[in-house]
């Protein structure tokens, strides 16, 4: 029997990046907010301190900061004709858990999407015609434009203190920055990061080929910075323990370093950790949320009534929460009808290794999560797709983030996977290999989707979420094209040998590729093809807002976190300035 608690204005599901930002905005606006976090409380001091934090086995391999598959995981299959099976170890991506969520152990690569990403259906149709891709492709407009989100990107970047150099300041192109970016209203808060050796060789090669290299925008900071919340961040030390780790130096922007301490001091905010939300409760007509039911760390069940429910979980878990709560019609791939779970997309990545002679010291361990140099010449719709037969794009860059040897020990093609030859190759190439990465968009199709698994359950007895995914033909073509361009740059980087690996089917859940799982609770302008309206508000239950990469109707070329942050401020603004004044649907 659930214990019924006192009603609150807002219950926030998940206290990660979204929960911290939205929690802060709503409490500042005078609302009482209860934040429910399934994981542990954790802080830079003492939890992320060195040298214990510099433990590749514990944090990278055993994934100590992330979702515990023993309690909760996902099932996976490549197509609806297969039986989905549980990911018994989570290997393909890194769902966060615990206070601060995955923004504790991210790399800090912080980008803005293009208008061509937000208005993909409209702009691609204008440029390439209505039937450029087949009917199985379900990419669509977000219902917001770049211009709508620009002020919110700006707020987010100034919260984090992002290090970079503008390439397009209010329309004025600035050499040295990313001249192909959308216009930004002001310069980055902090100057660009230092450039490692491999990145410098990439820059020279890319310039030689006529491209426009620039320093990666980084939320590991190049210099000390105090943000508008009064939080001060330090200079990144290039320790090489960034993604999969918490930052000991207060140098990586994370909820803990940019906003949480301020939020936690506000008496209007109540944090409860170890709370596993089971479902959002609805009234008898299913039109209004009445709060949530959760189970605490001792196994006790509580009902937390609330006037407004904000869902800010890991993207995949946002989708699962709506399915478990029966909010919105679940997507059915057979009929193409229904919306929750529709348009699951991912990220299409590949790599090219550049093997150097033994006098070239790449020093892969001298890296920051988001240091490096890249080009945007093939991002989004920055290049003509008319003769290429695919849509979308990707960046190409030397953006290595570490040289931790269990994960990183590159060998040339043809090297055996064990034995003396393998060992000699590892010793020979470890410090003399640069990696050029491609990071490409992922188009949505009618066949890739999320729903509840009919068989497997979590530790609380709730169905796991089932993922049905394989790389669409469009993205295989994209990867072939962009990996060829990357290989051309790699060849010009002065190595002795290169090895390119374009992305191939089938998608495998056993190999880490990216934690950029998107879609499933997508935003849009039409309730028959989206779960949320343009303010991230549920079409069906207007006192439920869902914020995260699950809102993306398809995934874009760049890393998604900048847009998650922008959407958090955008939605918080809509809640405060529109919804609270007149509770109800913000669009009809």
């Amino acid at each position, binding site marked *: 029997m659930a214990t019924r608690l006192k009603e609150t204005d807002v219950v926030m599901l998940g206290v990660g990046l979204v929960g911290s930002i939205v929690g802060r905005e709503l409490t500042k606006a005078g609302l009482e907010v209860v934040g429910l976090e399934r994981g542990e409380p954790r802080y830079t001091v003492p939890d992320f301190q060195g*040298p214990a934090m510099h433990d590749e086995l514990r944090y990278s391999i055993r994934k100590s900061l992330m979702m515990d598959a023993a309690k909760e995981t996902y099932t996976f299959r490549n197509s609806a004709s297969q039986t989905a099976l549980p990911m018994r*170890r989570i290997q393909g991506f890194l769902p966060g858990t615990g206070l601060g969520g995955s923004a504790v152990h991210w790399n800090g690569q912080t980008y803005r999407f293009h208008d061509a990403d937000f208005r993909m259906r409209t702009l691609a149709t204008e440029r390439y015609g209505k039937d450029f891709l087949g009917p199985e492709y379900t990419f669509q407009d977000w219902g917001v434009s770049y211009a709508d989100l620009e002020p919110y990107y700006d707020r987010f970047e100034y919260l984090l203190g992002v290090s970079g150099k503008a390439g397009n300041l209010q329309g004025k192109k600035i050499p040295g920055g990313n001249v192909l970016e959308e216009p930004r209203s002001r310069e980055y808060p902090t100057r660009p990061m230092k450039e490692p050796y491999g990145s410098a060789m990439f820059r020279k090669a890319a310039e030689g080929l006529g491209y426009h290299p620039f320093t990666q925008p980084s939320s590991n900071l190049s210099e000390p910075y105090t943000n508008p919340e009064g939080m001060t961040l330090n200079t990144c030390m290039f320790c090489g323990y960034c993604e999969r780790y918490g930052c000991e130096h207060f140098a990586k922007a994370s909820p803990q370093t940019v906003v949480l301490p301020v939020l936690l001091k506000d008496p209007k905010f109540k944090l409860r950790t170890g709370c596993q939300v089971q479902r959002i409760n609805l009234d008898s007509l299913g039109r209004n949320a009445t709060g949530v039911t959760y189970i605490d760390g001792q196994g006790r069940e509580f009902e937390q009534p609330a006037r407004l429910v904000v869902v800010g979980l890991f993207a995949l878990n946002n989708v699962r929460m709506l399915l478990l709560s029966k909010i919105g019609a679940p997507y059915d791939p057979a009929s193409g009808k229904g919306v929750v779970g529709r348009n699951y997309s991912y990220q299409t990545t590949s790599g090219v290794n550049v093997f150097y002679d033994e006098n070239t010291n790449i020093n892969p361990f001298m890296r920051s999560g988001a240091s490096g140099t890249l080009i945007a010449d093939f991002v989004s719709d920055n290049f003509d797709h008319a003769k290429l037969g695919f849509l979308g794009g990707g960046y190409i860059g030397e953006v290595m983030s570490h040289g931790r040897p269990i994960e990183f020990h590159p060998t040339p093609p043809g090297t055996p996977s064990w034995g003396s030859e393998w060992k000699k190759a590892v010793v020979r190439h470890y410090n003399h290999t640069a990696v050029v990465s491609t990071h490409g968009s992922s188009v949505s199709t009618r066949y890739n989707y999320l729903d509840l698994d009919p068989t497997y359950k979590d530790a609380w007895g709730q169905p796991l979420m089932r993922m049905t995914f394989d790389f669409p033909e469009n993205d295989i073509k994209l990867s072939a094209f962009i990996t060829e361009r990357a290989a051309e740059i790699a060849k010009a980087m002065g190595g002795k040998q290169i090895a390119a690996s374009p992305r191939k089917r089938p998608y495998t859940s056993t190999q880490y590729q990216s934690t950029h799982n998107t879609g499933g609770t997508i935003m849009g302008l039409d309730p028959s093809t989206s779960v949320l309206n343009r303010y991230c508000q549920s079409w069906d239950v207007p006192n439920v807002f869902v914020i995260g990469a699950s809102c993306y109707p398809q995934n874009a070329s760049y890393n998604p976190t900048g847009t998650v942050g922008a959407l958090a401020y955008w939605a918080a603004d809509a809640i405060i300035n529109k919804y609270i004044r007149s509770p109800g649907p913000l669009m009809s």
Partner: protein
Amino acid sequence: MQDESFPSDPGRRRLFLAVGAAGVATALPLLPAQAQQRAAPEQAYIFFNPAEATFIEAAVARLIPRDETGPGAVEAGVPNYIDKQLGGAWGAGERLYRSGPWQQGAPTQGYQLPFTPAELFRTAIRAVNQEHPGFAKLTPKEQDMFLDALHTSTKDLGGVPSNVFFESLLEVTIEGFFADPVYGGNRDMTPWKMIGFPGAYADFYEYVDKHNVAYTAPPTSLAQDANGRIHVHIELKRK
């Protein structure tokens, strides 16, 4: 069923003793007098029985051999690392989803066996040792052929496909070679020194833009004190 923790075949037992005397770690039940006469074993296994230890030591010596580039997996203490991992939480299935139903799927769906890592190793090694009790006595070339056969076939090892066992063994061998020495492998950080990885040291701000610098400072462990000693046992400071 024969108790495998102490093989009754005297020939096999002598092999263990010979290996132990050579300074490679095996735990042997010694009488106190004998223990005093001999140097203490370098390490004691908490998980592997002698037959298992013999196989693991011989196998990892081929996966990462000692050669002109430096010590191999045995010299780096990898069997000790694997033993401690299998005997601890990871071996018992930490962070592993263990609910049924159990069914084999496509390779893209990953590991789908009901075994914990500890069960998987014990089961597979038992089957290997039953079929080829003399693995450790084979020539290196023969051992390589045997391991390659494990790698490339799905032969049933008591319910564990041999390729799954091989891949698990290779994975933990590489972990033990390169993980911080506090976990019992990577002895003296020699594997890190071989490749030039600085370990737990974590400040390269002054070096990162000095391109092509040859970084030669010795690596550090996360359990190392100011004098370079690696503390496996924490020395509590008491007033």
